[in-house]
């Protein structure tokens, strides 16, 4: 039990000792399970030789960093990652919010519950199967979409899954389908916390339903939205690896190769953990920069941030 320094009446720690006590166990957990393994990042600066210890055998300084720094394939992957991530953010960030708001406006309770449950089911279909089903739908020879194109619109069949220009669209739309319902849960929870009095007041003031959304709902869940936004921005460099890998073909590789798939391919060829760790460190640093800047921005604009 943390009794604090001295049990002086009004001493800071003495007053709040319970709060600190609550933090002890989780903090310990964090230090042990999240920070101790970070020591392994030193591998980015050492040469790793399989079977000769997990921390490498000798210091090589920035060799691995300069390796990817000067590799055009890396920068292409970096650019692809950013572009895909930003597009994904722009499209798939607002959609779950909208969905949650609209769902909240459904007043037929049984219907609402059904939609709520069904909407998050896509998240559970393994990505491998999703892409397989998509492949069938978009197949140039037997897929429904192309059959429609040919017979109804008299257009040529397109091999969607293989063309570079469709890759991003497909990726983003699959993401929408998979995660909208899932992510909306958070916003739904936030919306239910809005006091009914606010809506009543707005109704009395003569606000229409759309106006109520803009003036009550959205401002009330703004803290949640900002938190989600900051986190999403911070994760800009981490994309759905498995999904990209499944959609990757040599023909669309110029846009579909992302950092993670590049590391996977390079790593797979020669189990170069040092190289992978170096890239990981680099991505991590960028992530921290992104989070801090978006947090600072959010604080300036809305007064709230995550720290």
């Amino acid at each position, binding site marked *: 039990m943390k009794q604090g320094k001295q049990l002086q009446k009004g001493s800071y720690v003495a007053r709040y000792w319970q709060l600190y006590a609550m933090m002890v166990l989780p903090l310990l957990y964090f230090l042990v399970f999240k920070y101790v393994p970070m020591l392994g990042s030193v591998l980015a600066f050492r040469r790793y030789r399989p079977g000769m210890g997990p921390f490498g055998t000798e210091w090589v300084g920035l060799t691995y960093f300069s390796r990817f720094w000067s590799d055009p394939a890396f920068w292409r992957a970096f650019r692809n990652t950013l572009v895909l991530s930003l597009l994904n953010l722009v499209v798939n960030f607002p959609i779950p919010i909208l969905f949650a708001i609209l769902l909240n406006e459904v007043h037929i309770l049984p219907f609402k519950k059904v939609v709520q449950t069904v909407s998050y089911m896509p998240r559970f279909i393994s990505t491998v199967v999703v892409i397989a089903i998509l492949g069938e739908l978009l197949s140039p020879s037997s897929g429904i979409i192309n059959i429609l194109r040919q017979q109804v619109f008299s257009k040529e069949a397109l091999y969607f899954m293989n063309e570079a220009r469709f890759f991003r669209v497909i990726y983003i739309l699959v993401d929408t389908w998979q995660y909208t319902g899932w992510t909306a849960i958070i916003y739904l929870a936030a919306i239910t916390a809005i006091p009914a009095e606010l809506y009543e007041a707005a109704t009395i003031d003569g606000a229409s339903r759309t106006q109520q959304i803009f003036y009550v709902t959205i401002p009330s869940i703004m803290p949640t939205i900002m938190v989600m936004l900051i986190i999403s921005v911070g994760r800009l460099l981490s994309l759905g690896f498995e999904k990209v890998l499944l959609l990757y073909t040599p*023909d669309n590789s110029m846009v579909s190769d992302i950092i993670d798939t590049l590391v996977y391919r390079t790593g797979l060829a*020669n189990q170069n953990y040092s190289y992978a760790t170096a890239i990981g460190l680099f991505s991590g640093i960028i992530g921290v920069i992104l989070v801090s800047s978006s947090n600072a921005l959010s604080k300036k604009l809305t007064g709230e941030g995550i720290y």
Partner: protein
Amino acid sequence: MKKTLLVALLVLVFLSFSLFAAGVKETSSGPIAFSVFYSDNATLPFKGDWLTVTEVQKRVNAKVEFEIIPIVDYQTKVSLALNTGTNAPDVILYQSTKGENAALSLNGAVVPISDYEAWTPNFNARVKEFGLEDDVASLKLKDGKRYFLPALFDVPFYDGGLILREDLLKKYNLSAPKTFEDLYQVLKVFKQHNPTSYPLTILAGPRVLYRMTMPSWGISLGKNGASGSNTLSWDYANKRYFAGAISEQYKSYITYMHKLYAEGLLDPEMAEPIDGDRWTQKLATGKAMASYAYYDQLGGVTANSTIDGFKLQMYPALAGPEGAHHQPKSKTGSGILFPIKTAKRADFEQLVRTVDEMFFSEENAKLWCLGVEGTTYTTQNGKVVFVDEIRNSSEGIYKSLQVKYGCGSDVTQMVWVNAREMTKYDENYARINAEVEAMGDVIQAIPPTPKFDDRMAEEAGTLQTPLFDAFERWNSAFLTGSKSIEKDWDAYVKEMKNLGIEKFTELYNANL
């Protein structure tokens, strides 16, 4: 007197000590216990009570703890165990010393089993029997030692290849193709009669097509290219590597493939993997009539087709500019590895002898292949005849033996005798294999792996990936016609040279 007594006493004590020590060396009669990593294929899930598993443990007096690991993650788990040296089992199955394992072995994480030849008499006997001394010797790494006990094949078999609709050949009065030119003509006829079809389709992905057909042009490239280098090929005549990806042979190959593609004879969907179900669909409904695939899969397609007279047949390799060749195969395969901590066991010798007997002895080789005489088969007039239940099963002898009894699994069967294997297939398969063998040199050996230490391996790796990526892109572009072979070939060669393909070739050749 006293002195002699003392000496006698000392001798007695010494004698009894040595006898005691010898007695300790003599292992107890209880079963030897050890743990094993097993790679589990979902199509034949491991069963602890498989006849083969229980029987073999009885025969060698061992108690084996099997760690069942899904095949798709097997490499991850093995790599983790060997890299960290913790939680490794005593024996790891289904491994070779390619890639990371080579570095791990050279750095001391794996037992150099060739040092313990005296303890693997059964393995040695099989090697001699099959005449594989050279093949096995070539598995030695840079330090001159071999680090695993490979699976042994006396003759590689032709388990997959060109598959055509035999009924259509008859219908359109075509003879079985012998060269790739013949194939082109056959496909054209198919297309004529079925304009909306794409006659030649592929299973899984273009890599299956490539690895089965490229050797007839003298090259082997791509994801599963024989050398593992993706862009280099082996010159069998001169016994060295050459830059296959930029060779004239490849140019000729891709020109042929492009022709097929441009005329609508090749399935345009081949860039995306075509999984088993869709492939079956295409063939069974007649949307495709030809493919490169595995014999095992024919039954499934035929059984489910509703087309009258539907018959699929497998054909020997077709002849291209460099002769008729199929995907190269090795006479040695993935086998048994011992993590270094196993060598520290007091009963290490007994363990090695037990493992050796378990997988390589004559009787146990038969066990893993055919099962138990009396239970799964009987010998009549010197021929193996399987019991009715197996013979009449709907999935075929081979599959039923695999799933029910654990026979014929890549992971546990180490000794493969072609003639014995043929008894598990129908006569058709045996006939085809015989035909292929008669053609001579259809299935060439796999090119030798260069002996790298881990620094060179790293260097090779950094060259390999960009070259492979570029090759894939250009290959796909040439195939579909988005890049022209006549006009853009030189640009392609230039790019590959810029990426260091010549240096890569040298690196390989210098370390053979």
